[in-house]
């Protein structure tokens, strides 16, 4: 099987872009990713694009700004794994031999959107209890039968881990957030790059215990794009392009296999463990070989369980792993040196490519002040509820 490489990649500044729409943001990322790879739209054989909150057809809208060549466009939608799904779609086209170069892009405008999930219908104006829907509910069940909100769902994910293995309390989860906010101070593209003390994090507005506001991913605007190329095609390009190219050693997408309780509280663990296992097999490496990890810390409570799910620690050892200092940027296995979703921000469809940009940035030795010295191998992970998990393992070019 031919190799797959990232040739060019870019993310926009994450934050509030009041004067620009999703097409503007995505087009900026696409133009920059093409320039980064030293190619143009004429070289692209396929395009995959994601934008969860928009009206559809984002790929074609972007083409109208950056170049319409008639290539196939796949508009993809996979919750918070949408960006990774777009990238994997372009990769699959190359693996299938249908194209030798492809473009993936994800974009979202979420600044000021507020709470995601929750709500639902209210009792009808006619004031009649009338059963509706899959559960024959006579009114909205959000808040009456548990919570549909993301901070609450992921709070339960973290608390369940704590119940199973112990040691995970409010302070521990807040410390994870403290780490990511500290990391963000070195990332000029982060939506928020303010360091918080542990007391500030724990004393901030409670959203869903134990997640306070700074422990939740930041809704913001942003885009990210990547150009992928086959190994055969890369050999025909310049030495400089080959030197900066980053090898995709593993590209995996999974959904959640049935487990008891998975239709009651989303099981974000099993599909991540399955994806990690397959990714390590594809790449022929183990977690001990990783120099940095960008994982889906949509909430502080989520980061903890993914230390375990990605095999960064022994089963049940996530609390000890964190307390050892390992995931800090000067630790043995830095996690979310970008600041993670809690401070870099989480423009949903962009996230699954932006985390790959972060890893590539370090593998290329171009990460400036936040460079993880000598980084050779990194892992990027995203998870979307429903559920979908994308994992990519990336390796520095030997050229």
């Amino acid at each position, binding site marked *: 099987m031919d190799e797959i490489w990232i040739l060019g990649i870019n993310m926009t500044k994450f934050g509030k872009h009041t004067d620009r729409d999703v097409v503007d943001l995505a087009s900026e990322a696409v133009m920059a990713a093409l320039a980064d790879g030293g190619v143009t739209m004429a070289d692209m054989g396929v395009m995959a694009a994601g934008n969860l909150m928009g009206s559809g057809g984002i790929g074609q809208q972007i083409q109208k700004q950056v170049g319409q060549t008639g290539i196939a466009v796949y508009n993809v939608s996979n919750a918070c794994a949408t960006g990774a799904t777009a990238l994997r779609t372009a990769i699959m086209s190359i693996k299938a031999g249908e194209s030798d170069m492809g473009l993936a892009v994800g974009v979202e405008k979420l600044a000021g959107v507020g*709470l995601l999930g*929750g*709500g*639902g219908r*209210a*009792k009808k104006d*006619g*004031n*009649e*209890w009338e*059963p509706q829907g*899959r*559960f*024959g*509910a*006579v*009114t*909205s*069940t*959000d*808040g*009456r*039968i*548990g*919570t*549909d*909100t993301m*901070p*609450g769902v992921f*709070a*339960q*994910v973290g*608390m*369940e881990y*704590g*119940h199973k293995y112990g040691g995970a309390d*409010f302070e521990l989860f807040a410390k994870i957030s403290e780490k990511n906010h500290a990391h963000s101070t070195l990332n000029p593209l982060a939506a928020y790059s303010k360091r918080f003390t542990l007391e500030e994090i724990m004393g901030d*507005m*409670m*959203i*869903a*215990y*134990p*997640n306070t506001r700074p422990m939740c991913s930041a809704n913001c605007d942003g885009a990210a794009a990547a150009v992928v190329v086959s190994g055969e095609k890369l050999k025909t390009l310049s030495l400089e392009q080959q030197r900066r190219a980053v090898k995709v050693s593993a590209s995996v997408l999974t959904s959640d296999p*049935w487990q*008891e*309780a998975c*239709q*009651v*509280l989303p099981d974000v663990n099993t599909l991540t463990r399955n994806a990690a296992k397959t990714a390590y097999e594809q790449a022929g490496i183990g977690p001990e070989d990783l120099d940095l990890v960008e994982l889906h810390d949509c909430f502080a409570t989520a980061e903890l369980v993914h230390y375990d799910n990605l095999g960064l620690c022994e089963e049940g050892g996530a609390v000890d792993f964190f307390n050892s200092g390992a995931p800090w940027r000067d630790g043995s296995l830095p996690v979310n040196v970008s600041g993670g979703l809690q401070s870099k921000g989480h423009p949903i469809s962009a996230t699954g490519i932006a985390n790959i940009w972060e890893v590539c940035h370090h593998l290329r030795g171009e990460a400036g002040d936040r460079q993880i010295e000598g980084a050779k191998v990194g892992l990027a992970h995203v998870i979307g509820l429903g559920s979908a998990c994308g994992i990519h393992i990336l390796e520095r070019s030997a050229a």
Partner: protein
Amino acid sequence: MADTSAPTRVPLVDYLVLDDGEPHLAANECTGCGARFFDRRNACAACFGTDFRRVKIATSGELRTFTIVAFAAPGVEVPFVSGVIDCDGTSVRANLRNVEPDADHVHTGMNVQLTTYSLGTDDHGTEAIGFAFEPI
């Protein structure tokens, strides 16, 4: 025309059973593998079987995880405790009631039991009944 002969009750969801002894929850259980589901099924998500039977869920269990929601969608009363209860091997999603909604009073591993409460009466005199779990 609405039947005005007697007040009637309707459950918040169809898997809350009010008219067969003590209130309890019921699930669709796959006769092949025993997987349980609270909504209607096309096939079993675990083994793809298509034969199901209605089973009663245990009315008490252990709180396996929870959150205390302080910020929710408009119209949702906060704070409230949302959790997952292990009812003799079947996981149930529910709120906790009759407990202070704070981390000093709610903890994983606590034993809880099913309780029901009124959601109010509509214009036809029908009362909707909700369910939650409360500490034993």
